[in-house]
């Protein structure tokens, strides 16, 4: 039986009717046309679908849309509503933290979570915290640099 859910997505209130079998990532992509959140492996390994649920990075391919009823969701589209890049996005651009770009939305969302939880994150912490995000292009070097730089930018701008 389809259920009505109310949630906040990128600051906007959303009310929709969904089937219980609908995954949160499919709800975001298909119902709300927020296609910045990607489906990579669809098995909770790769992290391309990472979004924030009540401020916490999670994998949207392994959450039902109905579980997000009442939640506050932030996707990659919500980071730069005025068109000016979020510091973490700017750091990925500056440090060439992407090649094909497929994993990038998830990397950026995880990177922001790292910056919030570990404002002094060193390289080892960043690598450990990125365990749930896979990139098949870059070899991670520049992603780690970008997250480190983005973390510094976020910490500086909030202090």
């Amino acid at each position, binding site marked *: 039986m389809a259920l009505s859910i109310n949630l906040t997505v990128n600051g906007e209130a959303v009310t929709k009717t969904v*089937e*219980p*079998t609908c995954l949160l990532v499919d709800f975001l992509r298909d119902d709300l046309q927020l296609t910045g959140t990607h489906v990579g492996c669809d098995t*909770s390994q790769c*992290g391309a679908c990472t979004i924030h649920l009540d401020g916490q990075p999670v994998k949207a391919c392994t959450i039902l849309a109905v*579980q997000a009823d009442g939640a506050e969701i932030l996707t990659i589209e919500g980071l730069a509503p005025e068109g000016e890049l979020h510091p973490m996005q700017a750091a990925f651009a500056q440090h060439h933290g992407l090649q094909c770009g497929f994993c990038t939305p998830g990397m950026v969302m995880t990177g922001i979570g790292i910056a919030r939880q570990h404002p002094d994150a060193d390289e080892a912490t960043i690598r450990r915290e990125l365990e*749930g995000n896979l990139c098949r292009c870059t070899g991670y070097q520049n992603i780690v640099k970008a997250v480190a730089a983005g973390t510094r930018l976020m910490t500086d701008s909030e202090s």
Partner: protein
Amino acid sequence: MFRFDYHRATSLEDARAAFDAAEDGVFLAGGMTLIPTLKQRLAMPSDLVDLSGVEALRGITLEGDHVKIGAMVSHKDVAKSPNVRDAIPALAILAGDIGDPMVRARGTLGGSVANNDPAADYPGAVLGLGATIQTDRREILADDFFTAMFETALEDGELISSIRFPRPERAAYVKFHNPASRYAIAGVFVAQLGEKVRVAVTGAGPTVFRHREMEQALERTFAPDALEGIAVDAGPLNSDMHASADFRAHLVKVMAVRAVVQALK
């Protein structure tokens, strides 16, 4: 996924009522195993009863020389809990090394223990510490709980509400990760509780089990050398694309020695 109906329970009574009313209901905790299982059409429940809104299943409390952890507490919250880190650091470290950060934010203690995946970490701590599983109807000792691969002593519709872990003198958990999934190919939890030592092995066999010979040796002398000469029988261990039974037997021994070294630090 096959079709199912979804209910978000607001209390234990509500959860039980929804389960009882369902033709073939299943409880949804963090969903980190159940949702992938549904996606692969390996399960076909008629109803999902979501426990995330049940307040009684949350919280971490110190009770004398025990730590009580609610079934719906996430791995992330166990890992960062000051009470757990102080009383049973090995348990906090174990929780902080399950899966990846996003999985740890959703996955729960109760979900993991009720599922009893042979490669899960938590069963190692529950059995290794001799914890007590509190359900909505009784207490079950860890030694009676894990019965077979993906099987436990839980009856149909029986819910874990919390788990009580005794504070050990010393303990450690060391695992050999599958490099892709991060699951334990072999993991050993060693704990010294008074005169007693418990050694629980996860990842290697069909279900978590105790290694009595190692326990007896460590009760005589709690030191890595005490395990010298003890052989791990590969016979009952799992063999799959990730590791042969012989390799797992070898890993169990190596992880046990490392766990003793770690516990003594």
